């Protein structure tokens, strides 16, 4: 367990010094841009899978501290995870910020955002990047033929978050 002071430092550090912040031009990346139309959060996430593992995850965008720090933490957490593990982490994060039980320790630094569960209006800020990564991974799997979903149904593009 960490102290709330440490959590604050982690969040501010990711907010002010975002990781994996440069988007790639490499066509092997699957790019998903999501917006939160009510507040203007706007995050682009790129995922490159290699042999079923997340070979790289990048993110860039604008938004509040929760949205941007969350994207940054996620981009570190998902590196080198298998697609299956990555999807599990995304599901776990979503549970954490909506107050459902989950194994928070597996989220490493991202568990600093557990307090979002006390702020229902901000849940979308926290999950925006994770939702984009999930789509990116599913797209990448579909493109590799490792999933059942046809690639056409998961086309790249700008979309609004639900």
């Amino acid at each position, binding site marked *: 367990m960490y102290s709330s002071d440490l959590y604050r430092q982690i*969040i501010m550090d990711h907010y002010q010094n975002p990781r994996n912040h440069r988007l790639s031009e490499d066509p092997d990346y699957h790019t998903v841009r999501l917006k939160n139309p009510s507040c203007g959060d706007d995050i682009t996430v790129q995922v490159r899978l290699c042999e079923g593992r997340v070979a790289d995850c990048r993110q860039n965008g604008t938004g509040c501290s929760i949205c941007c720090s969350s994207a940054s933490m996620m981009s570190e957490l998902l590196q080198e995870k298998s697609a299956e593990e990555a999807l599990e982490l995304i599901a776990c994060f979503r549970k954490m910020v909506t107050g459902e039980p989950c194994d928070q320790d597996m989220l490493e630094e991202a568990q600093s955002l557990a307090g979002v569960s006390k702020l229902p209006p901000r849940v979308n800020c926290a999950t925006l990047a994770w939702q984009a990564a999930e789509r990116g991974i599913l797209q990448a799997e579909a493109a590799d033929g490792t999933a059942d979903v046809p690639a056409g149904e998961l086309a790249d593009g700008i979309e609004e978050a639900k």
Partner: protein
Amino acid sequence: MNPDFLHEIRICPALDPAVRDDFPMTGILSHGRPFAYLNNAATTLKPTCVLNAMDRYYREYGSPIHRGADRIAHKATTAFESVRQTLARFLGTPHPEAVVITGGATMGLNLVCLSYGELVVGEGDEVVVTPNEHHANYVPWQQLCKRKNAKLILAPLDANGCLTPDALESVMTERTRIVACSHITNVMGAAMDLKALAAVAHRHGAVIVVDGAQGVVHERPEVVSWDIDFYAFSGHKLYGPTGVGVLYGRPELLEKMPPVVMGGEMIDLVDVYDTTFREPPWRFEAGTLPVAEVIGLGAAIDYVLELGYCGMQKKVLGLTERAVRGLLALENVHVYNPENAFSGVVSFNIRGVHPHDASSVYDREGIALRAGHHCSQPTMRWLGVGATLRASFAIYNDESEVDRLIEASKKAGDFLDVLF
């Protein structure tokens, strides 16, 4: 804003502070604190008289309007149509048939665009808007211009976000068909001299379409003496219900306009292969309207006329000036519209803090305000910011709520506290 006009407001008798008790929601708690509702430019709380009027309709005479031959249905129809009379008096027109009941300001503006706009705007014509319009008075015109290969012209605004008659004059041409602007804008809270703007538009043969959603709350529109062609507003920002609004249209223009939505009650004769339509306003009122809400809107209009605009203006001006003064005194706050207190709107940011982060700090203190682009991305572009905070005041707010806003603003830099 004209200093003489502000002086008249200041010397007007004050509203009874008990007006707060007319609004049941002023008594609720949020996060264990008295709820300070400072998001009135988004929607207002409702007085008991409005709630009772709607409740009475549903409990005592909730019958169809224009669709029943019985006594009770007649009562409902009479109550509904008497609201149209009230609205006509309120707007300063002798013609109730110039008052179209809509789903709100957005629906009214879209109706003007899709009916009148489609009729008169052709290739190469021009539609003038301002860069501070709400999306409801911007996107319809932008898309109309795209469809028609017409030009969307953005009129310049002064530093306070006001469209002056001279600035409008500078963009008018012989191709200008429509001028679309707000009575009061929703982010900057700039108030327009509509009479002067209408005169400019008319001199160039154009019509003026006014988004009155914010303006109607703070200044009673006089559509005839100001010579306005179209004026749209919503009930819910004027202490009335959601889902209902009004479009005033100059009778001879409404007469020319085709219906956009077709169905029951808007037809004259339906033949096999053709239909003739009823006269305005019924031509534009297809389907069953929100009867209870229309009756609630009538009660809201009666309520504000009883209070009187001068007293309401004085209350809102006083609260807003107090807020502007308090926020300007804080080094960590930037206020975008310090000169527009008449509108009850203060747009600001906490330096170095995203407005969405700040909004959670206010929420924790039981204060509701708006954070974001306020349905006006063009305004955000004009200001050169991504988003702002907006506090907006109404007649039931009090000075202690303004002071809580100022206090919370001092703490907004510690926005991560809300997580722990």
